[in-house]
């Protein structure tokens, strides 16, 4: 058995936290891009596209993130792709994030009065003009707080990547625990590091929500 000082433990956990952050950022940015695309599809007015988006959201919101991870990980390797745990986690978390963001943004866009769409159309604006000049600037203000609030779920979601063997914060915690047999201390440390990552995001989201509600 190797001896680890508290500083060794913390340092190793913090080194692994870089991967948690990298995976969170990848999933969030990827999820936001896919979510934008899905939102545009939903607003396009084609019923087949709207239906596809609805099924997509329903499937990813109605199945465990863990299953999505397993399916991407084992599904893609069954197709003959040699996929790393990192890539599988990034893809699965991107899909998961995009489904939730699409649903959140749907709510935000639906709060805008329908008359705005009709008025813009009467004024001869194209679909992309209506979206980028009329709807989005207003919806973004409403959407900011819940979107940042959801980023907390993304950071926490990355912990599941440990199960398919990606070494991030949680996996580093289990590995260190296997070496030192100090689960109480190590998992408390892991939890506190997650808290340090997530709590500022939660606070920012709450603050923004208050500000927006005040402005209304």
């Amino acid at each position, binding site marked *: 058995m190797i001896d680890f000082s508290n500083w060794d433990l913390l340092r190793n956990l913090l080194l692994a936290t870089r991967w948690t952050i990298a995976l969170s950022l990848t999933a969030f940015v990827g999820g936001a891009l896919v979510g934008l695309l899905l939102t545009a599809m939903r607003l396009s007015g084609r019923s087949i596209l709207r239906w596809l988006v609805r099924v997509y959201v*329903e499937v990813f919101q109605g199945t465990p993130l863990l*299953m999505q991870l397993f399916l991407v990980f084992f599904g893609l390797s069954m197709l003959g792709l040699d996929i790393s745990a990192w890539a599988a986690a990034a893809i699965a978390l991107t899909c998961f994030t995009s489904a939730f963001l699409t649903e959140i943004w749907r709510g935000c866009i639906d709060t805008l009065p329908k008359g705005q769409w009709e008025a813009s159309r009467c004024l001869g604006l194209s679909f992309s003009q209506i979206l980028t000049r009329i709807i989005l600037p207003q919806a973004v203000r409403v959407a900011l707080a819940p979107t940042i609030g959801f980023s907390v779920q993304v950071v926490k979601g990355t912990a599941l990547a440990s199960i398919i063997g990606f070494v991030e914060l949680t996996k580093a915690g289990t590995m260190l625990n296997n070496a030192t047999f100090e689960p*109480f201390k190590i*998992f408390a440390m*892991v*939890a506190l590091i*997650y808290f340090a990552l997530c709590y500022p995001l939660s606070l920012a989201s709450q603050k923004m929500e208050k500000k927006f509600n005040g402005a209304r």
Partner: protein
Amino acid sequence: MLNFSDLLPYTDLLLQGLGVTVLLTLYSTLGGVAIGTACAAGRHYGGPKMRWLIGSYVELIRNTPFIVQLFFIFFGLPAIGLKLTAWEAGLLAMLINLGAYSTEIIRAGLAATPKGQIEAARVLGLSSKQILFRVVLNPAFEKIYPALTSQCIIVMLGSAVVSQISVMDLTYAANLIQSRNFRSFEAYLVVAGMYLLFAILMRQLFEWTGRRLFRHRRVGA
């Protein structure tokens, strides 16, 4: 390429796993909402110390991953002398988790009941029990019922993680099957479908219950 017939011999295993997931969900929903109601009342009506304590609990749970909470309970607590079976640890983690989220949700419902309404009820001579159930809790729950429904479903889906501490739930069954016949994709696909169906069913059940629970009141309708 896909071959689902290899899963047929494991039907019993899958159904047993589903049963465990359903039971975990049932207990944690009932218990978690009870914890949430108590904590929300404490946070809304209690003194500053109580408010701070409940607030810390809620924020600590909401800002850490479920799997870390689970590992802390299952691996960490025995180190200080509190031994739990995998099932107990899984259920406890789910209870604590849903308790924190539902505290926040229910508190929003309580805050939406104007103080004047409670005063009015008192003036009208309602007992404190009547006020609690009919004036405060019933309308509060009606308002937050959709959010609570979603949260219970999220916790049900999150319960897949308890398979990691060897609770024999639905995901555990999938892991076991794929380790025996190497049909990993098929096993996970079927189990994901079962989760999806259960989630849809749960939502229906909640809506059905909600229509009965709040039949006599139509706020704002």
